[in-house]
């Protein structure tokens, strides 16, 4: 259940683009066509799925205060957490390079479609952000870290796919000159972010207070029963 909760939470509620603005640079630069957006999105999912678990291991066994205990008791009070930025970015840069070589060797087809985007990804804030959020949210196990990487990648993928589709259509509409291109993309992203905020309601799924309120509502207004049923449905999914 933990897994499903984290999965939906990272896709919809903590969406990389709409809630934390990570990876905005490439999000804005590569979203002119759906086909390229799909390529970059897939590459981001792929790299996040690899780097987040690797950085989780690094964090757990090298960087955290007391993580070096496995080396012997005299290392137990070492705290290397100030090194985490440099370690994470080095891992990401190497992993991206490695992934590029491996994909080129074993899946040339995939390489041709992802290839040009892979080097770009090393400096995509979404990738480093994924690892840093993994660290600051103290994700407890490696499979959850993997899940977090994949699901936040999917969230980013959805966001760039949606904006690319909208931008392809918007070419045919009459946008005021100064807003054309970048300006309107910002404003649309803002509106989409407002839309995604409504998913925040999923968070109250396990909240007792919200549940109690719900019960009061059902008692008061039977005609709203349908809506509440919907809410309870999402609740049961969350649990």
């Amino acid at each position, binding site marked *: 259940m933990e897994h499903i909760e984290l999965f939906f939470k990272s896709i919809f509620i903590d969406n990389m683009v*709409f*809630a*934390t*603005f*990570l*990876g*905005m*640079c490439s999000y*804005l*630069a590569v979203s002119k066509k759906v086909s390229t957006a799909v390529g970059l999105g897939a590459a981001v999912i792929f790299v996040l799925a690899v780097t987040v678990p690797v950085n989780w291991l690094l964090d757990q066994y090298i960087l955290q205060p007391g993580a070096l205990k496995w080396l012997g008791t005299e290392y137990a009070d070492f705290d290397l957490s*100030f*090194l*985490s*930025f*440099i370690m*994470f*970015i*080095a891992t990401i*840069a*190497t992993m991206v390079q490695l992934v590029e070589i491996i994909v080129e060797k074993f899946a040339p087809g995939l390489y041709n479609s992802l290839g040009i985007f892979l*080097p770009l990804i*090393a*400096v*995509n*804030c979404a*990738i*480093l*952000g994924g690892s*840093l*959020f993994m660290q*600051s949210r103290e994700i407890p196990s490696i499979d959850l870290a993997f899940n977090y990487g994949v699901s936040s990648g999917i969230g980013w993928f959805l966001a760039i796919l949606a904006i690319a589709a909208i931008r392809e259509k918007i*070419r045919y509409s009459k946008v*005021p*000159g*100064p*807003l*054309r*291109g*970048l*300006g*309107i993309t*910002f*404003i649309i*992203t*803002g*509106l989409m*972010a*407002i839309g995604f*905020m409504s998913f925040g309601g999923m968070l109250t799924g396990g909240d007792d207070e919200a549940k109690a309120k719900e019960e009061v509502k059902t008692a008061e207004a039977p005609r709203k029963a349908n809506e509440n049923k919907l809410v309870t449905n999402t609740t049961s999914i969350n649990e």
Partner: protein
Amino acid sequence: MGLLSRKDAKLISDPLADNNPITIQVLGICSALAITAELKASIVMAVSVLFVMGVGNVVISLIRNIIPSKIRIIVQLTVVAALVIIVDQVLKAFAYELSKTLSVFVGLIITNCIIMGRFEAFALGNGLWRSFLDGIGNALGYGVILIIVGFFRELLGAGTLLGYKVLGDPIEKTGVYAFGYENNGFMLLAPMALIVVGIIIWVQRSRNKALIEDE
């Protein structure tokens, strides 16, 4: 200007307006949006980026002839990461509360595209002094947008500036609140940052028609 030749002065003034890193070059958006709910955080972020950009550009410019071009990205990342660690440690030591608000976004200065972009586009091909000016100029251009966005979001969203209640007290109904003014809490939420930047772009491009993109 006595100190700077006209060409050098342009390096600083250009990014402030017609070649602004955020609104024109579309670099460094990520951190610009996430931390601008308060003016104070925006200013600290702007200063941190100013430091990293200025020093980083100088370092890269100094070693530009000895970096093998194949591994330059990793070298650049290492230089930035080292500088950002300094910033992070200083913030943690002297402004702990603030470093909690900025949380991961201090770390994300590393992947701030402005920094990598300027390294690639400028510091790798220019001398020390010009690279330094370019770094300062771009960081200032970035900071200006950050401070504008932070100013409006904090003023309209919380009615405060740097924590001071400039519009009066919303609970005791003093200042403008006496006339029925209400804070727009929505300004503090993430989506409004995007829309505020969108409006800044609109204003800037209406003033300078040359910047308008043609489809």
